[in-house]
């Protein structure tokens, strides 16, 4: 009689065997999840109209030529939605990647160098006191020509201290782990220890952080867009569309709903991808002696 213990994690335990076999399921999942992301990036190629020429009446309801109706100037909502994601995705990616990378590196270094750690903790404590939106407003206003770049820089500056804190919190128990001490004791450099000994153990944390940072970046950038900081009107941008078209929500709801949905979908997508890549932290509990 053979019985198999159900795999609690819902996926095979990670390890040598699973490493060798291509993780088909994960790959397929990631591919499916990445589809909307690709659509956001490739949208401009398949949009039926240009973003700036009116094709119908302002806030016209869905109909001939404009499957999702017109926006406040009578431009095609569908085309604008297809165009409006690229820059948002790219900006959010830039913010998420830079923030996460910085956080991962500095966070790991911070636990190996306690003094750096304290400085970062204080900085994060101060940064946390400033409502992020106010910070963005200040930075964007201080750099009037900055536009989207200003928002990206602001999002990075404001997001990094907290992200470092999260990584440092996750890394601090590892700093005293036997293998880290062993590596330090045998003469490895701080960079090596941070990158090869600590970081691999924070994969779940870092990937989750990346996912959340991306979502947060989308949130912050669209919030800034809504407040007219960053992307400027003729440009099509999802958050801008929501703002511009909010007044006509009763005339053509799609002009608001479509970009809103796109933002939500984008967030879920990125999260699905990171979740499918992140190792399952609960699985390690069962391999304990």
């Amino acid at each position, binding site marked *: 009689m053979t019985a198999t213990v159900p795999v*609690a*994690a819902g996926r095979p335990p990670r390890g040598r065997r699973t490493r060798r076999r291509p993780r088909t399921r994960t790959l397929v999942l990631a591919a499916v999840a990445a589809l909307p992301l690709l659509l956001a990036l490739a949208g401009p190629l398949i949009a039926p109209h240009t973003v700036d020429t009116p094709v119908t009446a302002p806030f016209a309801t869905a109909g001939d030529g404009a499957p999702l109706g017109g926006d406040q100037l009578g431009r095609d909502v569908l085309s604008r939605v297809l165009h409006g994601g690229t820059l948002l995705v790219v900006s959010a990616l830039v913010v998420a990647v830079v923030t996460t990378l910085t956080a991962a590196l500095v966070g790991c270094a911070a*636990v190996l160098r306690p003094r750096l*750690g*304290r400085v970062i*903790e*204080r900085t994060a*404590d*101060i940064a*946390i*006191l*400033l*409502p*992020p*939106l*106010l910070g963005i*407003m*200040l*930075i964007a206003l*201080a750099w*009037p020509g900055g536009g989207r770049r200003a928002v990206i820089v602001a999002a990075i500056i404001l997001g990094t201290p907290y992200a470092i*804190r999260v990584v*440092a*919190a*996750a*890394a*601090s*128990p590892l*700093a*005293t782990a036997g293998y880290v001490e062993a590596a330090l004791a045998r003469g490895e450099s701080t960079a090596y220890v941070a990158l090869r000994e600590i970081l691999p153990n924070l994969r779940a944390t870092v990937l989750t952080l990346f*996912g959340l940072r991306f*979502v947060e970046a*989308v*949130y912050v950038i*669209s*919030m800034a867009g*809504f*407040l007219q900081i960053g992307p400027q009107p003729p440009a099509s941008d999802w*958050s801008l569309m*929501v*703002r511009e078209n*909010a007044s006509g*929500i009763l005339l053509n709801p799609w002009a*608001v709903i479509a970009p*809103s949905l796109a*933002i*939500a*979908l*984008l*967030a*879920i997508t990125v*999260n*699905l991808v990171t*979740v499918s890549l992140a190792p*399952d*932290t*609960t699985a390690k*509990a*069962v391999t*304990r002696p």
Partner: protein
Amino acid sequence: MAAPGAGAATAPRRAGTTAWGVAVRVAGTVGRRVLMLVVLLALVFAAVELLPGDAASAAAERGESAADLAERRHLLGLDRPLWERFADWMTALPTGDLGTSARGQEVTELLADPLPNTLILAVSALVLTVVLSLLLGCWAATRPHRLADRLVTHTSTAAFAVPEFVVSAALLLVLSLWTGWLPAVTVTGGDGRPTTWTMLIMPVLALAIPQTGWNTRVVRGALADQAATPHVEAAHLDGLPPHQVMLRHQLPGAVPAIATGIATSTGLLFGGAVVVETLFNYPGIGAVLAGAVAARDTPLIAGVVICAGAVISLVLLAADLIRDATLGARA
């Protein structure tokens, strides 16, 4: 080894077990928080100074001459060095004087009505957020990797990604314009407060939904970390029922991370208030802030920052104390 972590469960601090020791520790924590607030204010003051234009030109109107502007600048004291203005402002602070705005009004007076309104809004939203996210997070954590868990995780992600203005638009459309169940905007009476409490529902929901998304993720994540600790695994092996494992073993360890998450949320709530208050015409601090930033009204911005900062500091302080308590500093 310093543990610069919000969630790092370090060895219990035993700074003081006597009442005196506790008092010293609490005073130290409060002092540190106050110091941080001062640093933040200095930064904001300097940042506003970096902005192109100043309060004088922002409050000017079409047709004012350069001489008029200089005169206005002098009246507002903008020709004095930055540090001097900051020092004046800081020293007046303990007397409850927040200075005078660029338009010549008392900042304290300008904030007297909007601040309580925003506090009502933010506190209700925060309470709702905390309750909802704890319930959802715990519920999902007791069903790891099952459908319910995944559903909660993805919904909360989406809820967080969708900014307040989208949520507001949806709520407005559904709860007011289509169904007419709730008043679409807030109308204030002579006392400066919303005339009916139903006017609060939509703004509170619009603020709470994204924050609930974020905090549910934080709670769920912190609980997952705890689930991986040996003592939680041992509690399962001891045959304890799941809710008991959750309440006694998993949740206490997750409290510090959750508390920090909520403190962050407080900041985001203030930001969200700027938007939500505009959309629902809620008479709060958000509208004042938006205008103040546009007008480079340093004293007014600083006033708002200190109010927001003080509230966030309070939440962080509570988080500090909760962390101390759950780590058994007083054992």
